[in-house]
């Protein structure tokens, strides 16, 4: 056991050390279009608070919380599957930090060093998701139905584009907004900006590609069965759109052609998602699970208890309501597949015994039961080995947000944020914040913490 642990520490260390410690931007939500939440940059160990931005009003979410329970299935404490705008997440490019407000409808640019406002731009509706900064331009969507391209330095409008078919505004949860609000953020890749607009499928929901330089629409497709809400993701060839309580949908990036919607069980949708290659991990479902799909597949490969996940090499870090864990994901998924096969076989035999007990002769019945016992033993063994894939576990109530910066995981909790050594699972840093730390960003030597009270805390090292 000790040897195995040492070996694993080594693997972890190698995986983490392969990333350089250079300063990096955090130009979009959760760092990149895969929404990995991972930066190569290692933040200073002696982080301390340098400034705090306090919004006069707390964030005003698009959707209230979920029902208190599922009475039919007796599931309590349902997770919120449409929670994507309960804080003001920060993106960072160079010495500027940007965020949008769903209260006063503005896009803000702050001086990263001091927190002083450099500029603010009024849209005409709540800005629910963080901007994306690419090549000196800020791309942001608004509930007013427009995508805006702003100069990152001056905040001047460069272009704006309305993906929806008309300028129709109505009351949406107490605000005058477009019938086609932009609630997916904006993904910018290869000079093209992608976003969706629309909530109610009966009004059609639009996915469009826009020339990032000019604002000219390149193509637009529509959905009439699902909304688009939560941060959109992208791979080299695909766009992934989260839909709220339902499961994500996948499109071709070149033309917006719909490929498929993820399959799964009832209640396993959500707006949290990340990509590793073309493997999509999403959740939290109704009970706090991360659903892992196969590479370029629509079917679920496995699921893990957790609110958030970080993928780094063969390892995954899972954040549940009560703990942080490090998981040898690759091995786990292999064992999971084997166990699923064995479980299916055992269930088939059990079903046969149940249905045909009266007609099966005693000899065959004994044989079937023996096979079941063997399968059961195998399943138990596989389960044991799967348990061993968890390399460390840190009990903690820091369950709101998780990122990885260098070798350190940062986890947001209620009124507090912690740093955890990704190799050992030991807590190495802690700071107080005002409210639930729902979003974390790490860039250029600073850690930004956004809370449900509309507060943004910036931490940096003593030498910064």
């Amino acid at each position, binding site marked *: 056991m000790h040897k195995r642990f040492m070996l694993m520490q080594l693997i972890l260390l190698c995986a983490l050390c392969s990333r350089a410690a250079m300063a990096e931007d955090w130009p979009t939500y959760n760092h990149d279009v895969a929404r990995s939440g991972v930066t190569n940059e290692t933040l200073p160990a002696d982080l301390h608070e340098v400034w705090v931005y306090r919004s006069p009003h707390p964030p005003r979410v698009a959707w209230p919380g979920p029902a208190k329970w599922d009475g039919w299935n007796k599931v309590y404490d349902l997770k919120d599957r449409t929670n994507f705008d309960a804080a003001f997440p920060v993106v960072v490019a160079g010495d500027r930090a940007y965020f949008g407000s769903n209260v006063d409808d503005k896009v803000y640019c702050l001086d990263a060093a001091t927190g002083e406002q450099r500029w603010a731009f009024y849209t005409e509706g709540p800005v629910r998701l963080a901007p994306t900064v690419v090549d000196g331009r800020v791309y942001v969507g608004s509930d007013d139905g427009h995508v805006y391209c702003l100069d990152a330095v001056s905040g001047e409008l460069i272009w704006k584009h309305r993906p929806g078919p008309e300028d129709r505004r109505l009351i949406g949860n107490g605000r005058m907004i477009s019938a086609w609000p932009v609630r997916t953020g904006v993904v910018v890749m290869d000079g093209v900006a992608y976003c969706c607009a629309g909530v109610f499928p009966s009004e059609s929901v639009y996915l469009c590609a826009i020339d990032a330089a000019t604002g000219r629409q390149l193509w637009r497709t529509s959905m009439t069965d699902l909304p688009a809400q939560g941060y959109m993701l992208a791979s080299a060839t695909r766009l992934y759109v989260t839909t709220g309580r339902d499961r994500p949908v996948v499109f071709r990036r070149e033309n917006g052609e719909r490929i498929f919607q993820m399959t799964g069980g009832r209640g396993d949708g959500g707006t949290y998602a990340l990509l590793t290659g073309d493997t999509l991990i999403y959740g939290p479902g109704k009970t706090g699970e991360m659903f892992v799909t196969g590479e370029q597949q629509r079917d679920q490969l496995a699921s893990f208890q957790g609110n958030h996940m970080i993928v780094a090499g063969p390892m995954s870090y899972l954040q549940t309501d009560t703990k942080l864990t490090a998981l040898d994901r690759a091995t786990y998924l292999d064992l999971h597949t084997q166990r699923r096969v064995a479980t299916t076989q055992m269930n088939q035999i059990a079903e046969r*015994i149940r249905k045909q007990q009266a007609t099966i002769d005693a000899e065959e019945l004994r044989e079937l039961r023996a096979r079941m016992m063997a399968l059961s033993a195998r399943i138990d063994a596989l389960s044991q080995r799967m348990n061993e894939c968890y390399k460390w576990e840190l009990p903690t109530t820091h369950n709101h947000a998780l990122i990885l910066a260098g070798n350190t995981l940062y986890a947001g909790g209620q009124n507090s944020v912690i740093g955890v050594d990704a190799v050992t699972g030991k807590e190495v840093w802690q700071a107080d914040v005002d409210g639930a730390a729902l979003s974390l960003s790490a860039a250029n030597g600073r850690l930004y913490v956004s809370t449900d009270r509309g507060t943004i805390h910036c931490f940096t090292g003593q030498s910064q």
Partner: protein
Amino acid sequence: MFFRNLILLVLMLAMPAHVAAQTSGTLKPVAGWTIGESHFDGKRLMPAHGRWVGVLRGNARVVGTQVQAIVMDGRSHSFQVSDNIAAMDLPRQTLTLEAWVVVRRPQPWGGIISALRDNGDDERGYLLGFRNDRFCFALASEATGKLTYLEADRPFDTAKWHHVVGTYDGTTMRLYVDGRLAATSTQQSGDVLMLPTGWFELGAYRDDDEFFPMQGLLHEALVYDGVMSETQVKRRYAAKLDRLPAVETLDEVSRLRVHGPFAQFVSADQVRISWETSEPTPSVLEFGPAMDQMRRYVDAQPKVSHSFVLNIGGVNEKAVLHYRIIQPRNGGEVKTRIYDFECEFNDAVVPPLPERPSPYPEDDRSAMYRAIARQMIDAANFRRGYCLVLGAEEGRLAYELARLSDMQIVAVESDPARAQTARRKLDEAGLYGTRVSVLHVPLGMEAKLPFAPYFANLVVSESMLLRGELPCSSEEVYRVLRPYGGVAYLGQAAWATSGASGTPRLTAGALAQWLHDADVSQGESRWLEEGGVFWLHRRGALPGGGDWSHQYASADNSAAGGDDLVDDDLRVLWWGRPGPRPMPDRGARNPAPLFTHGNLFVQGNRILFGLDGYNGTVRWSVQVPEFRRANLIRDCSNMAAAPDHLYIAGGSRAFALEAQTGICSRSFEVPPVRGAGQLEYDWGYIGVVGDLLLGSSTVRGGAYLGDEGEWYNDDTPGEIGKVVSESLFAYDRKMGKLLWTHDAGVVVNATITVRRDTVYFLETRDPALKPRITGRFEGNLPQAMHLVALDLATGQEKWARSVDVSMFRYMAYLVAGEGAIVAAGSDARRVYHLQAYNDTTGEPLWQYSTDTRKKHHSGWLDHPVVVDQRLFANRHTFELCTGEVLHINEWDFHGCGIMSASNQTMFQRMSFHGMWDLDTGKRKELAGVRTGCWLGLIPAGGMLLAPESSAGCSCTHAIQTTVSFIPRKSDRR
């Protein structure tokens, strides 16, 4: 390990029954069930002894930690161990039955362990249970073929745990209560006469035609093949007595005679808690953030209405506060249970205004702006809602309107620079986004406003006020003005032109000319020429828009509100609160939302919402912890609406809540019920017709609450009981005077129907059939039923006709249309029956019975709809007065809800909100959203209103919200 356990379970179930039970000296159970985590998963009660699994009917709570018990509600809860008792191989020569229970409600027949049949001459099996307030042990032997009910010699205590044991040794029956011999009998001898078929049930008395669940707590039930000695009984009693869960205190509201309470935000940091008492008395409120931090508020004056406004500033908006009401009684105190006040349901309050200096100069116009803003708000007469400011200039009028009201201000300005200035100033004032937003929109006589219709409670114009500029066409103004009272206050102030040469002056003639574009005939217009020239218009009703004042549209139960506008080509008009959080679980067949005169009323889980139906503004919400009703398949709703008030039944009263504020302005008491004895009655049916408030009296506890995740779908005892009333009465709702009472029999609540000047219902007049314990007709309706017609004004009987509706098992409805009233019900085989009668004479017109066409998701519970002369039921369309089948729908649809209709379109859940054209049958859906499992889609006021009702659904429907749709034709700009 789990899989190994699974295997063992499979193997165990596959094993032959074993009978060995008794070993020398030690009596071991052959079957036994103990409530505990390791045995009970919420539905299945795994056996602690033997191999028979108990399956819980309904959904009950477990209490206790180390030693646990299940709370039985006395209506739906019991464990079915087997419906084929012969297969259980139960002991017959000697036996012992043992149980730990609390029986909270004495009743004529009660069961703890039930394995009997008591049908006239066919008496078999045995029972450990109770009769009235005494435990009993019943048994029939082969020698007698008759049951002996051995009753304890003293009553049980409804607030204590009791250990009850019945033994039979082949000659003597003994009953022990709490370790003490309570009765013996030698009437039976020889083997027990077992029943060849039937049920083995825990927690209920059950045989072929009777089902009487117990109310109380059950911890354990055991069956032995052998006789437990008195010593063993005493030892077993003593061993567990002190380890059982505490007996929960009973809800004392009824004993207190407290009515309400109501808890309502009056501002962002204040809550008002009010209640009534039956007699003038001092009253005390305890209120606080935790049980050990409750503060007492004493209302020392002896009076019937009590109210406190409490400061909750600084409390987290997710906090749950607690309160209870205390009444002095006989030198001591009696307390209600602890209620929760949930701070997160604060949609009806606006954040407090920030204390910041005005961004506008304090000059000679400041007072003028404030004065005109005040006039506009006073004219609007809306406390909350939306105000549209056309030509907002730099936002000064918008600023004053926001400061003086709770309205959300949508300010429109065509000049981009001015719009930007307005934003900055209003932002500086701390109002931007939270109270005011400024949109850059081109204006002018040809301009089309980008807004969906009807949203504005108040439309004003600053550019017109200052310069007489007409911002857009009057047609556009009218299009966005809210029906039922939206106010346009437009014109030019004299102060804007006085002393300012060159300022254009608006004349009444020019304003009148401008108004030519709009048809304002449905409202009230006034010209104000003091201090300038102004046109003040209050918009009237939307022509063609229907109301939905009762559960099924109107008191006629037609489920069609007569809306002539809503068709199947719909667009979203608005969406908003309430979301799923305050709503009851979707399956419990909850009360429908209501709509009258622009007011939308939504009943959540013990919380009421008053919304503006045209823009979703939550005007008020009131938390009402004692108000809840479910299973409307077998009951009527607890609310009805008039144009000015929402009427809601709770306990023994109905309350009139002002439509605009939710404040209770009057209450009405159930009149005394003849022959009530010790029974107490709650307000059952509620209806409003003109100035009459109709009500009925239902035995307390008869109504369903739906708190346990029930679906009420199957033929389950305790779930299909039809709630009944023992009297029907009418009040003058404005004067509070009782006008008449009808108490000739027992009325089926779900059949009470009013059309024009007549009240119709199904009633039995056999006093022996009064279900005085349960307040429900379990199983089929009785044979002796009448269809009765009363004069609405006087309560005098017009006619009564004997009808045979005894096959109605799952439900019994009555709906009325022009010329016919129709009874609907489905029988045990799920055959759907319709019986139509002449609405003037009661003569039978036609009847029709056919298999339920939709065989899943409650298809057999379908509630009919009447649109003009067409009756829609069970996917058939009938000619109402002849019964001619006009059409049969062949298609299937998924959902569990029922139908509602406008004059053109039928609405019902399919996968999503669904609809079909009444004439063509063409179907459509509004993807992404679904409704609940009863009536959640109401076409009214020119809209399809769909308050959130899918709460708790695990399904992947992407959106859970309240949403309103309008016909595309109404949205044309």
